[in-house]
């Protein structure tokens, strides 16, 4: 921490720096803010410029095209858009009810001491690096999916779902499961904060009318916090859409649409991570970056929506950590 923050104890030492005039100080801060904004603008401009060849060449068919073939230099992003949506849906279908349930428990039901401990533990899920999840998914869950889940599904349905299975464990379902675990802390932490912010008067008002604990939660607390919960869902969705490394490690990275839970496919983020370094052909690179532009736009929009929904509720530093 050698960044000009001085220990209060050294404030009185004799060697004094020349005073910085107020005007210069304000200008300095403004310049810093400007540099930051310029970085963000450069971010967007750089990506768009790098992606331009792909958009210029393929036009709108870049989004609707289902072929992704570096050999014939034909690039359509639809398989990855579909793959991203599929994995996100799987993750959110699990994360919304489970996250909301855990958030209810952590905000209103558990004793406060337990709340703090378990709340911290769930937030720790957000701290675990993406690659560690990927490693766990690839080397622990995938073999388990291959030897237990897929045969079980095959036994029940007589086949491995429409489109057949990868028979190697990795694929859509596994990616969705890993994503679920990764977005769960976002869902839990933010929902918990907005649920805890529901005024006591509201809860007591319902209790005083003869409501049971369950009725208070389902008919008063959740509706009261609905905007914030929607914000939590949106924010978690944003994370699921853009999550890269763990998904890259467990989805198989096949550039084709799959209709099977056990089929391999790729998401927008995973195909970039998987192919970027081997993309020697200019169109290939530009097409990958074009996917990044699409991803950036979608993720930014989702985040803007989420921030607007959560904005009304004050957020703690811990919520920043997981968001």
């Amino acid at each position, binding site marked *: 921490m050698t960044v000009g923050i001085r220990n209060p104890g050294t404030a009185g030492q004799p060697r004094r720096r020349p005073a910085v005039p107020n005007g210069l100080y304000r200008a300095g801060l403004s310049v810093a803010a400007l540099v930051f904004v310029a970085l963000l603008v450069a971010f967007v401009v750089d990506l768009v410029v790098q992606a331009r060849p792909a958009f210029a060449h393929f036009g709108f068919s870049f989004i609707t095209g289902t072929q992704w073939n570096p050999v014939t230099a034909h690039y359509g992003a639809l398989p990855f858009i579909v793959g991203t949506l599929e994995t996100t849906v799987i993750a959110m279908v699990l994360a919304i009810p489970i996250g909301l349930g855990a958030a209810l428990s952590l905000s209103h039901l558990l004793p406060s001491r337990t709340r703090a401990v378990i709340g911290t533990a769930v937030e720790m899920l957000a701290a675990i690096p993406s690659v560690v999840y990927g490693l766990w998914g690839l080397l622990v869950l995938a073999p388990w999916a291959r030897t237990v889940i897929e045969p079980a599904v095959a036994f029940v349905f007589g086949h491995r779902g429409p489109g057949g299975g990868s028979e190697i464990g990795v694929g859509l379902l596994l990616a969705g499961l890993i994503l679920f675990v990764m977005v769960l802390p976002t869902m839990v932490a933010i929902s918990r904060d907005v649920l805890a912010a529901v005024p006591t*008067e509201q809860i007591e*008002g319902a209790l*005083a*009318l*003869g409501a049971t604990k369950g009725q208070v939660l389902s*008919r008063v607390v959740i*509706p*009261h916090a*609905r905007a914030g919960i929607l914000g939590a869902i949106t924010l978690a969705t944003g994370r699921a859409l853009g999550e890269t490394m763990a998904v890259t490690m467990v989805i198989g990275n096949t550039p084709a649409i799959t209709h099977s839970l056990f089929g391999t496919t790729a998401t927008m983020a995973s195909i970039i991570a998987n192919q970027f370094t081997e993309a020697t052909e200019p169109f290939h690179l530009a097409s990958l970056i074009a996917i990044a532009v699409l991803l950036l736009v979608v993720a930014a929009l989702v985040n803007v929506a989420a921030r607007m929904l959560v904005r009304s509720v004050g957020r703690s530093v811990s919520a920043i950590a997981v968001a």
Partner: protein
Amino acid sequence: MTDESRVTTAQTDMTAPTTVESSPDAVSSIMQLHEVSVAFSGRPAVRNVSFDIAIGQVTALIGPSGSGKTTLLRALNRMHDTVRTAKVTGAIHLAGIDIYGGTLHPTLVRSRVGMVFQRPNPFPTMSIYDNVVSGLRFNGVRNKALLKEAAESALIAAALWDEVRDRLNASAATLSGGQQQRLCIARALAVEPEVLLMDEPTSALDPQATRRIEDLVGELKDRVTVVIVTHNMQQAARISDRCAFLLMAEDRAGELIEFGPTNQLFSSPTDQRTEDYVNGRFG
């Protein structure tokens, strides 16, 4: 409070549940408080309060802040159950049943003893109509005709019907503060409770809205027994039939100093402390 005393109350209850020596006029009572104490984390907040609540009358709990009025009021519908550290001892009988005796579930106690809070707390995500019938729905009522009938009756009784009859589907958040509080009264009345507890219901309202609520309380008498907490002695004198005066003892626990008909308590109190308080010498 020992188990022994609870047993005794139960026994006396069987024989004579309605007459109490402290009430000069022999009106039958709907609730009886016997040696009621409330403690938070072992620290007493209200101690050994006993009096009867006369049916069809307005009983006011008065006293300076910190005297335990609200704490006592919240013991009457088991609201303290939501606070883990709170402990209520003694016996409170509602129509002959000890509400802490285990025979009546707290949820059912609260549907028979309604409550209106200091600040209006309508459910902002519900319409005006849904707010009024929310208590009925909590209590499992699904009969549409009954819901509608009860809602209209409660809104009329709360003097809100004329103002909202054309916009029952509007959000409750669109109402003014005074209207919101009357909506909360209607919401409580719709469940048709036997007793309505009001915890300083006008403290967040302007004088005009306060006056409307005060008038309303008088009109509610033939429908429901009212117990009201107020820090405003003029209000207590205006609207109540009987008054309970509480005061904080040296250990900060509220105790009942005097209980009796309002005019008697204000004109010729028996306790010097009551006289000092109603004459504005402290509090």
